[in-house]
């Protein structure tokens, strides 16, 4: 199967354009480690927000912990603003697939307080949902088969790129 993806920079520009009419200067972007944090940094600059971007690690709330792949070494603590009470948050991630990461992210966020509104921005919706989750902002929708992986990487110069491949352990 050959899928060609647009450059990541272009996707980020399109995502920012979708978000621009709906964000205020005090909107807080919350990147999910690791890819979401990179994208949130870029969006933050493009959208000219005043609040620094926040970051979260969802390891504590993963639902596959008992399967032996819950906690990875070097997991980073979440960094959320002192108060998320009443805030407008936009959760940022690279790829939306099953929706389980977002479920975990929402649990993590609500451990810090009760935001007024939470939205979701992703670069790519690749299909394959297992939970009733939808992105608020998403510039590209694909229908990738289960066995295919789609990973965001960042090189030493800070350039972002997607790579398509076979999932490890896929049939």
């Amino acid at each position, binding site marked *: 199967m050959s899928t060609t993806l647009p450059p990541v920079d272009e996707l980020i520009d399109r995502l920012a354009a979708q978000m621009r009419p709906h964000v205020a200067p005090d909107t807080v972007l919350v990147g999910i480690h690791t890819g979401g944090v990179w994208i949130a940094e870029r969006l933050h600059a493009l959208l000219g927000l005043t609040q620094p971007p926040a970051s979260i690690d969802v390891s504590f709330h993963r639902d596959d912990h008992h399967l032996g792949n819950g906690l990875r070494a*070097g997991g980073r603590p979440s960094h959320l603003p002192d108060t998320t009470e009443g805030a407008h948050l936009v959760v940022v991630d690279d790829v939306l697939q099953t929706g389980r990461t977002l479920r975990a992210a929402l649990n993590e966020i609500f451990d*810090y307080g009760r935001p007024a509104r939470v939205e979701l921005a992703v670069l790519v919706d690749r299909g394959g949902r297992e939970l009733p989750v939808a992105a608020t902002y998403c510039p590209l929708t694909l229908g990738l088969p289960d066995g295919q992986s789609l990973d965001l990487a960042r090189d030493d110069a800070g350039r972002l790129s997607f790579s398509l491949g076979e999932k490890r352990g896929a049939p």
Partner: protein
Amino acid sequence: MTQANPQLNQHGELIHLLSIEGLSREILHGILDRAEPFTAVAEREVKKVPLLRGKSVFNLFFENSTRTRTTFEIAAKRLSADVINLNINTSSAAKGESLLDTVDNLAAMQADMFVVRHASSGAPYLIAQHLAATGRDHIHVVNAGDGRHSHPTQGLLDMYTIRHYKQDFTKLTVAVVGDILHSRVARSQLHALVTLGVPEIRLVGPQTLLPTAAAQMIPNAPLRVCHDMAEGLRGADVVMMLRLQNERMQGALLPSPQEYFKSYGLTPEKLALAKPDAIVMHPGPMNRGVEIDSAVADGRQAVILPQVTFGIAVRMAVMSMLAGVSQ
């Protein structure tokens, strides 16, 4: 012949934590890495994460301990486990029930994890072996101190503390001061320090408590016995004090607490021989005026209270690792 390490499954993952001896540098760093994000849990609005939700953790304390039991209890509760504390001194064991009968009964109550403290060295091993032999190896065992043998979570939280303040183990000089031979805390610390690559470890204490041959307690390790406190402390990066147990005073091993303090109590004057940025650690409970002077215990180089805080994160990491491993 090599025997399989009872702490690890066939994939080399930790299923029980019984002692630091036999764990690789990679596993030790893995535990410390995993502990790091847990330090932030206490600062949240909701001081709980759901990794052990629905699991039952039994604290089996056949020997008294308030602090260790409490920190295990807090760690398990912050992981959302249900915690059952059994003070066995005052219950079934006092009525004559054997250790393994107690374990069988609690396993029949659907325990998921035992945290065990016992006055006999090897009791947690015995429990882990018994669970494996009876097909119940989904139940995990954490050693919370057995006899003179091991106190692995204390050793790990001490390593977490050292790494937090000093980063690189391979450049450090560490002095361990006190009743090292009788101390399970010291034994765990020494195995961890050696495994993590500390190039110079000094064992400091009086001849009566610390024969020169103590340097051989871990073969081929960079251990050096110092009967002179000044020699032991000079240029050290880390000073790890041990609690002097009162019973040692009765066995003619030591003249008096005052005499011990004069030679081996850590005072500001003695600490000045160590590096200016040396840290001072103590596993608690402290005997002020016996092994440590109040001016040091409350001084700027002491990291004794951070040790307690880090201990909760380290125990959370250990328990969530064990619970998260597939058999």
